[in-house]
């Protein structure tokens, strides 16, 4: 009887995050609905943040609290960040996983984790 694998393990752990991060970030940068939020940011620092976000959404090890999420996005909320933008990010996340051949059931679990941060990200 093997121990039950976590979502992070099922997805392939850190290697899966590394495979996904560039694809995901390219989608986000090319998406006219949200790309303006990524103008004038240091791309390298942003890529590292995307990696931290994907690690969390994949159910991997992280230490983000709701408070961190609020503080990290407050300046974007001021610039008009709303539900439609969170929808766009979650869509891009799902499309990235589909491109990598991940099963829909697992994609739904990842999307649910991302979804759980929505209220904190939008500061409400």
């Amino acid at each position, binding site marked *: 009887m093997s121990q039950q694998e976590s979502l992070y393990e099922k997805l392939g752990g850190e290697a899966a*995050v*590394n495979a996904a991060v*560039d694809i995901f*970030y*390219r989608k986000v*940068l*090319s998406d006219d609905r949200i790309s303006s939020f990524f103008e004038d940011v240091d*791309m*390298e*620092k942003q*890529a*590292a*943040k995307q*990696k*931290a976000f994907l*690690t*969390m959404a994949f159910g*991997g*090890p*992280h*230490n*983000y609290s709701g408070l*961190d999420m609020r503080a*990290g996005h407050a300046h974007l909320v001021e610039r008009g960040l709303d539900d439609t933008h969170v929808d766009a990010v979650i869509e891009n996340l799902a499309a990235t996983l589909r491109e990598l051949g991940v099963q829909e059931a697992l994609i739904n679990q990842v999307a649910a984790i991302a979804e759980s941060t929505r209220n904190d990200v939008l500061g409400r």
Partner: protein
Amino acid sequence: MVTIRYAKDNFELGENQSVLECLTSRGVPVPFSCRSGACQTCLMRATVGTPPEISQQGLKDSLKLQNYFLACVCHPTSDLDVALPDDKDIQAAVPATVKSLKLLNSEIMHVTLECHVPIDYRAGQFINLFQDPSLGRSYSLASVPHEDDHLHLHVRRLPQGRVSGWIHEELRPGETVEVRGPAGDCFYTPGNAEQGMVLIGTGSGLAPLYGIIRDALSQGHTGPIRLFHGSRDLNGVYLTGELRDLVRQYSNFDYVPCLSGGDVPHGFAAGRAHDVAFQQIPDLKNWRLFLCGHPEMVKTAKKKAFLAGASMKDIYADAFNVSQSS
């Protein structure tokens, strides 16, 4: 017992403690966010000692080689002296004698410096050169250690530039200046010798690229090395003789001077350097990129290169920001 030394203070590392926990619990303001080795907010550098490999995971090769590490996942088993990336006092100022000054074109001066104490650098990094203790500017290194005896800089004269104006008009061979450095992570790292390299530079952005190219060739890089140097017109082009000699000498090296102004003679490409480069190499998957010079060019080219398939870790850039005080 492991000791972490930061800014002359010694801290004992507790059992199972990370360097981040050790420092922040004692009041050192190290920025952090994810605390799991992903977001790179807590980037630090070991100035003495070697950080554990696991604390360097996900960092660019040029940062690993300079002993940068992520403090939140760093559990060293031996002592480390550490600094934050923007701590300016990591290096002492070194006096250097000006050996020669020679114009490369109407606005760029080739400066060679002999440091009184040799500095350990990599081609493509930059140093700060001081006119007086409070007035210094960053210049990239075009020289290659072990190949060139002195440091080589290409100093472009800026309108109202205080330091560049002084270098062009007042500085003389034999005089002594102060330099501090090196710094920067835009340089060649050995390994993956067959990887293709695209180098795009505008103006004196050619300086680091000229160093990086010769460094890569001398280290036996076998993959294609393609240089695109951009300027408005023929007046801004320089080192063409030296670069064409390299083309004859190395079959894997290729040089395309690009002119964005109107008149484009034979042997030059028409257009901005990054546009020409991305037209010629539309798919940049698995290529290594070096982008140096005008900040707008660097920013645009970085994004385009990434969208054209280059991995973020393979993009090395140095934007030549002009100091606000000129």
